[in-house]
């Protein structure tokens, strides 16, 4: 019974993955026009005043998931230069420090890059609410993330989805020789 369920889950997952859009096409037709997206009213008087996703997103580094755009890469390469603040007194903080999580059960260890996150977000978006600043003090599981907690507050909603296991679980425990937790030298994977 258990074995049957396992194989059903695998077949299910493979079918869903294979149905995903391929990143091969780079033209604007990869993105659904607003008037056909099931949300915008094609009769809306201002529909033709709005920018089409394909027009903007086809100019950016391609991806196979999410908005089909590599947002972090787009920012780093200067393809986009989104504003960091509206109020002049806002302090802009970017932290270049990787964390490596080892308590990952059967899966690979997780590398969390503070840099990629703080280029977009403020410290206060995660600390001390979603995550405590002290490494290991928060205590969350993959099931919490899948339920929209912890990392899942953004990943799966607005940042790359939870189908992309290896983007976070990127450290092979079999070959990892370093120390878990906050890393001394910065500059890990983006």
């Amino acid at each position: 019974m258990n074995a049957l369920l396992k194989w059903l889950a695998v077949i299910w997952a493979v079918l869903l993955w294979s149905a995903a859009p391929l990143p091969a096409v780079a033209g604007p037709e990869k993105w659904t026009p607003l008037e056909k997206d099931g949300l915008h009213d094609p009769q809306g008087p201002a529909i033709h005043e709005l920018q089409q996703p394909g027009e903007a997103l086809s100019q950016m580094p391609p991806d196979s998931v999410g908005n089909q755009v590599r947002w972090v890469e787009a920012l780093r390469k200067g393809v986009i230069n989104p504003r960091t603040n509206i109020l002049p007194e806002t302090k802009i903080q970017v932290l270049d420090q990787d964390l490596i999580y080892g308590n990952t059960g059967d899966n690979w260890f997780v590398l969390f890059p503070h840099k990629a996150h703080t280029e977009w977000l403020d410290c206060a978006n995660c600390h001390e609410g979603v995550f405590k600043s002290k490494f290991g003090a928060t205590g969350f599981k993959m099931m919490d993330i899948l339920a929209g907690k912890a990392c899942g507050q953004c990943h799966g909603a607005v940042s790359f989805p939870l189908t992309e296991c290896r983007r976070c679980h990127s450290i092979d425990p079999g070959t990892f020789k370093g120390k878990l937790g906050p890393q001394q030298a910065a500059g890990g994977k983006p």
Partner: protein
Amino acid sequence: MKRTGRGFWRLMMALALALSLGMDAAMAEYADVVLNSQAEAQGVRPVIYPHWFHRIRFRCKVCHNELGFQMKVGANNIDMNKILDGKFCGMCHNGDVAWGTEFCDRCHSGLPGLKTGIRGGSKSTGPGEY
């Protein structure tokens, strides 16, 4: 199969379930937000908020830190009076940073009957409480 235990299979099943639940809304752009707690009741179209459009121009921290938007759809209780007072969307949509509130139909652009929530294709809608 050495590192493939029960937890992994449970996770696979949860993931497959999450994906298939999200498949019905596979047309809209990833992370598009529908806001309709008040709009239609007040006689205007629901608001469609596109994250992708805003991300090109502003980092997350601008809205989710400076402007005070909580990261949960429906949690902010925005109404037109707050926007006209320069709060939430009104911090930018004031004719100075971005287009002003006289362009009603650019934001109130949704199909009638849409429910408040986060939408989008390319494997977006997770099972959680976004």
